[in-house]
């Protein structure tokens, strides 16, 4: 095969080839960002100068001078200021905290630090780097990870001797804070708390983590320490606000980067329209497969991001076929997502670094800063939902030298279409804000319990800046707390942190057991319950590492799904039936001729039926029923209802279409307005709402208790309607398509103009009332 290399196409060649796809009806926009060279600063001098051993160790690793942002951040941290560093992928942010932390420990061997990473994988990765640096320095600095995998006999050593303890928020929550007496040496000497990947602490998870930090600060105060917080983040819109909400203290922001950047081509690829009437474009998955296959054939190290676990597995199956056809080892194409076991993941990460794995197909699990070395290309299947995520994913491609390529393949989803038509939105607009609400009642109350378990609360105490007297009284009534001598004591036979998961409402995952060989069952993965209800129901085809498995039985009570390997030419896709009930209305107001309101709502979701869909052609070849208990969500919701005088202007079938259209378009626009991930919101429509008796469209917060989306939508309803109208009128379809109001169920009706009529009702009176 000596001739093969000469036929290989480079990244630049491939960009040209992609452009040629325009002849086939695709729309391709290419943007070139030339590389930039480094801007350096100087190591801080003066009262806070660094230990010479650190500088020598860095020099050995080829670091003579810091980048400007590193120098700036280190100087601020050494001066004892809380600091947040916001820089792109691979700009050397770990230096920003490792240098001042190690310097403090060299000066005082009793000094301690906690590093918090959102996942165990990231913690492992950073520990390896830290170990390397400590070894170069040659001092006795003890660094350990402390997480669920730490063996019981090693824990004592970590607690007593660890200078730097690397952990995750969950372990801090259940394993460290509730046992703080065992960690007294750490807490009494704690100088630094490093919180990396701060941008992942958004939404519900972030709201929980903010409360874990409140508890951490409370314990530190008890032991008389006041650590300096160092936060690091990928680019987000509001680093200062997010960091301040997380640590509830003043913070300095370093939000520029002196690191060099690589030459990069960003391609927006919108697949050709295959049915103009229905506004249907060629599928993004298959289109992306074609692009990725070329990268595989040309041996270009590539990462493919797909949005769902199912899409990852489908893509993996396809690309392995392509690799086989191109005579490449099938094992050089790997999948990576939640649900794989930890050592399986570590193996893939190693393969990426050492080059035995050339192509990896991933969910956003690899979006975070796990070190997988430089890749040359990145294919993003479908807009990831946020600007921040897009840049994180695209940042995976890019070495220090040479050109790299990022291709964003648009799906028919409205947000994707919007991005494909307006790439400048992505290129020029600042990334989303990280929203969190530490005072979400559900979250706050959970952590009041945990806090009381850790140390009794005094009368009038706060958790963070929140007064909690009413909550203490509430738990007192319920006998979880006992009040005596002006304090509230935990008084229940329970360990509250264990019942409260920081990441989702439910802690009990379904374990997937492969019974292909009945005598030798093997656990191949696990999945959360909501995911399991649609992916692991009886008779589902579950794809794991490209291998199809048929689910023999889902044992909901025992948390186990039994599967066996099969080879069939279809996959399954399940539907979720949702019902919504309004519990309490907090506010209402007119919205043009329509009505808007927000309040608390109870949702039930139940997987109902599944379809069997043929591979490659994606045609429907059968269906079956799913019998599983329903899932509940108590949250906040925003809703728009149609009063009778509006209803009267529509025929009944028309009204149905208009309502569905309104729901569809609002679901598409709301994430843009709220700057959140579309998956954080849900939309539900009712032709006759039990609450009002009127046709109603609801937008609900996907988090129990809500993190403030519903109230925000209520307040900014006018802009919401205006954006919806904009999206609708800009859409190229004739009478409604998935990119705007959804596919019209009744082909004789024009869903697009019906929805437009409804939107105008919402604006019309507003205009007249103002005028």
């Amino acid at each position, binding site marked *: 095969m000596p001739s093969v290399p000469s036929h290989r196409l480079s990244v630049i060649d491939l960009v040209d080839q992609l452009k040629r796809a325009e002849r086939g009806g695709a729309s391709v926009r290419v943007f070139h960002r030339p590389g930039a060279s480094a801007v350096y600063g100087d190591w801080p001098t003066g009262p806070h100068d660094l230990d010479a051993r650190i500088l020598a160790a860095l020099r050995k690793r080829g670091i003579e001078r810091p980048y400007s942002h590193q120098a700036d951040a280190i100087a601020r941290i050494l001066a004892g200021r809380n600091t947040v560093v916001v820089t792109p992928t691979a700009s050397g942010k770990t230096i920003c905290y490792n240098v001042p932390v190690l310097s403090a420990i060299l000066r005082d061997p009793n000094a301690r630090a906690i590093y918090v990473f959102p996942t165990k994988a990231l913690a492992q990765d950073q520990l390896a780097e830290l170990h390397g640096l400590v070894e170069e320095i040659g001092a006795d600095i003890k660094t350990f990870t402390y997480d669920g995998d730490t063996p019981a006999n090693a824990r004592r050593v970590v607690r007593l001797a660890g200078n730097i303890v690397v952990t995750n928020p969950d372990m801090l929550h259940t394993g460290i804070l509730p046992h703080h007496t065992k960690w007294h040496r750490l807490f009494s000497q704690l100088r630094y708390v490093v919180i990396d990947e701060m941008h992942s602490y958004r939404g519900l998870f972030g709201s929980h983590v903010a409360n874990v930090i409140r508890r951490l600060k409370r314990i530190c105060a008890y032991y008389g320490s006041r650590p300096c917080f160092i936060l690091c983040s990928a680019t987000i819109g509001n680093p200062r606000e997010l960091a301040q909400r997380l640590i509830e203290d003043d913070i300095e922001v370093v939000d520029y980067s002196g690191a060099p950047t690589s030459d990069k081509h960003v391609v927006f690829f919108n697949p050709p329209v295959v049915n103009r009437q229905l506004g249907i474009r060629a599928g993004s998955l298959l289109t992306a497969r074609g692009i990725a296959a070329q990268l595989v054939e040309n041996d270009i190290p590539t990462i493919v991001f797909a949005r769902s676990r199912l899409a990852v597995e489908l893509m993996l199956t396809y690309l392995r076929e392509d690799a086989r056809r191109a005579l490449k080892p099938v094992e050089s194409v790997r999948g990576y997502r939640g649900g794989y076991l930890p050592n399986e993941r570590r193996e893939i990460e190693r393969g990426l670094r050492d080059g035995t794995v050339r192509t990896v197909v991933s969910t956003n699990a690899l979006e975070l800063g796990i070190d997988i070395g430089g890749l040359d290309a990145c294919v993003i299947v479908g807009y990831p939902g946020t600007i921040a995520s897009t840049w994180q994913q695209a940042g995976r491609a890019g070495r220090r030298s040479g050109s790299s390529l990022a291709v964003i393949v648009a799906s028919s989803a409205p947000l994707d279409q919007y991005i494909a038509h307006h790439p400048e939105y992505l290129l020029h607009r600042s990334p989303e804000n990280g929203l969190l609400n530490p005072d979400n009642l559900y979250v706050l109350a959970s952590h009041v319990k945990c806090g009381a378990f850790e140390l009794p609360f005094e009368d009038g105490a706060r958790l963070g800046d929140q007064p909690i007297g009413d909550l203490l009284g509430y738990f007192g*009534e319920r*006998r979880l707390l006992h009040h*005596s*001598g002006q304090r509230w004591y935990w008084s229940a036979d329970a360990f*509250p942190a*264990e019942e409260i998961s920081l990441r989702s409402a439910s802690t009990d995952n379904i374990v997937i057991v492969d019974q292909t060989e009945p005598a030798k069952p093997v656990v191949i993965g696990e999945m959360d319950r909501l995911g399991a209800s649609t992916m692991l129901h009886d008779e589902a085809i579950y794809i794991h590492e490209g291998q199809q498995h048929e689910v023999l039985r889902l044992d909901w009570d025992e948390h186990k799904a039994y599967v066996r390997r099969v080879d069939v030419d279809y996959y399954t896709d399940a539907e979720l039936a949702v019902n919504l009930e309004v519990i309490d209305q907090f506010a209402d107001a007119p919205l043009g001729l329509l009505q808007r309101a927000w309040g*608390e709502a109870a949702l039930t979701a139940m997987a109902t039926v599944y379809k069997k869909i043929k591979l490659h052609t994606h045609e429907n070849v059968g269906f079956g029923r799913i019998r599983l208990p329903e899932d509940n969500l108590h949250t906040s919701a925003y809703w728009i209802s149609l009063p009778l005088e509006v209803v009267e202007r529509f025929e009944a079938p028309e009204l149905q279409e208009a309502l569905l259209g309104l729901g569809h378009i609002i679901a598409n626009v709301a994430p843009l307005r709220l700057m959140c991930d579309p998956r954080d919101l849900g939309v539900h429509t009712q032709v006759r709402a039990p609450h009002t008796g009127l046709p109603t469209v609801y937008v609900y917060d996907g988090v*129990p208790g809500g993190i403030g989306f519903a109230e925000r939508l209520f307040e900014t309803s006018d802009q919401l309607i205006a954006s919806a109208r904009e999206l609708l009128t800009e859409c190229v379809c004739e009478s409604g398509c998935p990119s705007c109001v959804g596919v019209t169920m009744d082909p004789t009706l024009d869903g697009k103009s019906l929805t437009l009529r409804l939107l105008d009702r919402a604006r019309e009176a507003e205009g007249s009332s103002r005028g």
Partner: protein
Amino acid sequence: MADRQRRLDFLDFGRRGALAPEPSGRAGVAPRPEPSTENRPAPATALTASPPSPWIGHEAVLPEFVRWLDGEETVGPAGPALVVRRSYPATVRLGRQPLARALDVDGARLRQIGRDDTLAQLDISRLAFIDCETTGLSGGTGTLAFLVGIAWLDGSTVVTEQYFLPDFPAERAFVAAIGQSLDGFDGLVSFNGRSFDVPLLETRFALTKLPSECLELPHLDLLHPSRRIWKHRLETCALGSIEQHVLGHFRDDDVPGWIIPQLFFDYLRSGDVRTLAQVFEHNRLDLLAMVALVGRLGQMLDEEVVPDDGPDLYGLGTLLDDLGEAERALRAYETALTLGLPPDLRSRALIRMAVALRRSGRRDLAAQAWERLARERGDSAARALVELAKHYEHEEHDYETAADLTRQAGLLVGLRPWVTGPDTAQDQLARRLARLERKARRAGQRPMTFTGGSEVSLVEPLAAGP
């Protein structure tokens, strides 16, 4: 906008507390007697949103504590504390077990029971038996001990002291009094105290900022030796189970352990110490059971009491084995086999016998034990055949018999020499067999043929044995 308490109700939050009872009319605990003394503090009105709740200082609870629990006040290093003191003549029996027998357990035996050399120099009457009643089993800073029982042997009596925490704010005085009491001893005796009571007390000492050296005293935890001996017969090796099934003592009206935390929480709200009378009794009985248990373990090691039950004797054998008492262990196994053991324990006893015999150089006797095991045809038969083969190979230099035995082992594990993979038990057998066949040929013994039959014949080759 709804107030936060109402919204919590809506979120169904109250019910998420694992054991959070309904706000009123909780069922399932012993009915509380009516308040009977004028001096009694008014019950804390726990049901109001913001209870005024003066804490139940020990001054307030003392009269009742004296009256109903026969307790007293004691002055500790951090203020007055509450204690119940009792003494029992050592001649008393707990079930079949005289308490006084514990007095005969010397340092050498303590060392053996605990498998801990630091116990060797100790005198049993200088040890504190300790047992905590707590607000839960989960550990962490939110779990505390509210009743700590300490017992010791004083001449011909057993003395118990039970320190009681009347309410949370009194914890420092309570913990200090416990520390003061323990400081007078040379070591601790507990049941599962190493992993439960001591770590929990360490946390309480740390939170009350009191020195906890007393918890670092030499520590004899009775759980481990008890489990070694009795786990083969008893479903659980909890102290209560041993007390019943080994010491032969049945408690009347004992309060189940899982309900104890709730009884304390109920007391906190009512201020009525009678709620806890049963808990004090339970704790005292646990202390006495530990005293009795030490005596029983001493008796067993002295061979004063020989279990009449095969599994117990096998368990005792394993304990003796651990202590390096090979001869006594062998005797125990032999007797256990005679008394009768279930098949799995039978195999394990024979394996342990064979290993102990080989280690002490009695290889022929070891071979006999392997042979007995092979004849059992149980799960361990293949291993026994291989061990026998080793014996014939290395001791008897009878490669033919050794190969034959290996082949039989192969049949048991499904050996097909031509399909084995690397590093399986089958593969190891195949390699052994090949080596033996080679050695046999070289030694001019009968040429080897594979005699794969359907029936494993254990008897013939063994008949030619010693």
